């Protein structure tokens, strides 16, 4: 079943067409990677889906429902979560609180009038936050202020925040950008683990081809805002157009 569909999606910035008539379908339990050279429109596409940007034309449907008129938080509430390219965390809050913020939104909705409820009573929130921190391996650092974490752990926390909002679809924008090789490896392991454990559908935007080919079910190749190829890792590996446009003809 199609979880996410984009229908003739176009985004123009002035004269520049960043996303050009993209029809993308992501099925449930599918792992899709979006690749393409710099400026291919990958991040724009993600930002359109998360409602950070308004499309010029076209429709985006999640679980069959159009989301182009919604606020970003409403899209998250319906089950689309995003991990950012940089470690977008809450630096002054503890690791535990970082996870709890996201868990709060998942458990209690986008808004409530519970300003006189002591947070120790939010048992569901504590459990989700604890489970998530356990999953990303940060539970033993729960009381550390987030800004004191090393960079790799901040990125793990960032993914943890995205997971704690209990998404059906996780969009990951270059989860290994700026990481050391060791950190990259452990993040890939983390993604693999999450994939196993939570049976998550995700869309990954990534530069590192090794990662893309190892963890995707399907790869979508963008160039100048257009989808130029789509298929399994093996099909993409053999696609001449992809090698020409994106990989510069280098054999993989």
């Amino acid at each position: 079943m199609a979880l996410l569909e984009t229908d003739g999606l176009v985004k123009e910035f002035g004269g520049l067409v960043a996303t050009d008539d993209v029809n993308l379908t992501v099925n449930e339990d599918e792992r899709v990677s979006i690749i393409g050279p710099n400026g291919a429109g990958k991040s724009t596409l993600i930002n359109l889906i998360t409602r950070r940007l308004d499309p010029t034309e076209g429709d985006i449907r999640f679980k069959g429902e159009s989301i182009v008129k919604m606020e970003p938080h409403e899209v998250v509430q319906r089950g689309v979560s995003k991990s950012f390219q940089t470690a977008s965390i809450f630096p002054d809050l503890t690791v535990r609180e970082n996870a709890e913020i996201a868990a709060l939104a998942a458990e209690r909705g986008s808004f409530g009038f519970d300003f006189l409820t002591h947070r120790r009573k939010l048992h569901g929130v504590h459990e989700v936050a604890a489970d998530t921190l356990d999953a990303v391996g940060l539970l033993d650092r729960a009381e550390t202020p987030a800004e004191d974490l090393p960079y790799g752990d901040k990125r793990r926390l960032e993914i943890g925040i995205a997971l704690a909002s209990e998404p059906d679809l996780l969009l990951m924008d270059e989860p290994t950008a700026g990481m050391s090789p060791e950190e990259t490896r452990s993040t890939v392991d983390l993604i693999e683990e999450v994939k196993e454990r939570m049976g998550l559908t995700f869309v990954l935007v990534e530069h590192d081809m090794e990662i893309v080919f190892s963890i995707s079910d399907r790869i979508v190749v963008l160039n100048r805002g257009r989808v130029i190829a789509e298929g399994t890792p093996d099909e993409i590996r053999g696609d001449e157009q992809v090698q020409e446009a994106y990989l510069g003809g280098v054999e993989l």
Partner: protein
Amino acid sequence: MSDETQDATAQGAAPSEGVAEKEGFAGYELDTAREPVVVGATALFVLVFPYVFARMPVVSGILQGYQGLATLMLIWGIFALGFDLLLGYTGLLSFGHAAFWGGSAYAAGVFSQFAAESLGFEAGPVIIVVVGTLFAVLLAWGLGFLSLRRGGIYFSILTLAFAQMMFYLSSAPLSGITGGENGFTAVTVGHLFGVFELESELPSVLGTLMGTWLYAFVGLMTVVSVAVAYRILNSPYGMVFRAIRENEQRTEFVGLNVWRYKLMSFVISGAFAGVAGSLFTIHGNYVPLQSLYWTESGEIVIMAVLGGAGSLFGPMLGAGIYLYFENIVSGVRDLTVPFTDIVLLQGFGEYWHLLLGVLFVLVVWFFPRGIWGLFQDLRNRVTGGDSAAETGGER
């Protein structure tokens, strides 16, 4: 730090809360124990403050304090406490909180006149505070709705503009109600609970400690305000406010309606300003036009930052220090060498603005977390640095 808190759980944990905290989240049991401590300490302070400040031998002589100023300090303290929920915790700088302070002061005064002249009863302080606060809440809802359309400096400017509109409205077009430049003089405050005259002395030892019923009422409102504010900080709101301050975009992208939480932060801080403004009317039996002027908005910002924005008690301390300079230091005629008659500087008190300005600059330069933050650092140094349990809940 986390090791210590986990040990504490293992040794002395109450099993009743054990289910949720099973996986290393020990902080909440400490929170539970801290709430009565914070409220109790506030109550104790409120109980002895006027005595120490205005009547205690030697100490009050040095401090030069007086009863009325002690009351005024608590009133501004409530205002600063609520303002800090917006500035220190949510990270929104309103430059128009005079609208809620002065607005509720006028609402309280006008209501008391209306009750006395048209309804035929003298409104007691409780109902006056309720009416004034309600007015401030509704006003904050409206102004917040309009001002929060824009972020950053534009938000500040919008709040300033709306507050100045209120000032001009009450200075001329509405002067029939507000008394214009003369201020509102027809305040009629009844007895507390219909029994106790506000200016009369409290019985026996309470009279020695707290002085008047008026102070006792203001003190009670202060304790209630601290309790409510502390609870808000430990509620989901406290976390969401700080999340918005830290990273507004991320807060939106975990699925929280940032706009509505910001509006609530604005309204809640407006409510505290409303309580304070109403008490100000009761305290002074008069509403000056000045109470809506932009300088009041500026003063509350200075108080909060001086004392320490982003802490529970810092802004209240800042309010106290500000008022001390304004009312006591300004009255010191000559600066002398202590215990002698050697005059160092004549007309010392006239420089109180300058002194306060220098103090403000020094604090902002060297102690960005304010004077309260400085105290916390000193205490942590003395006690060996572990403050996870002490600062965790309200940081």
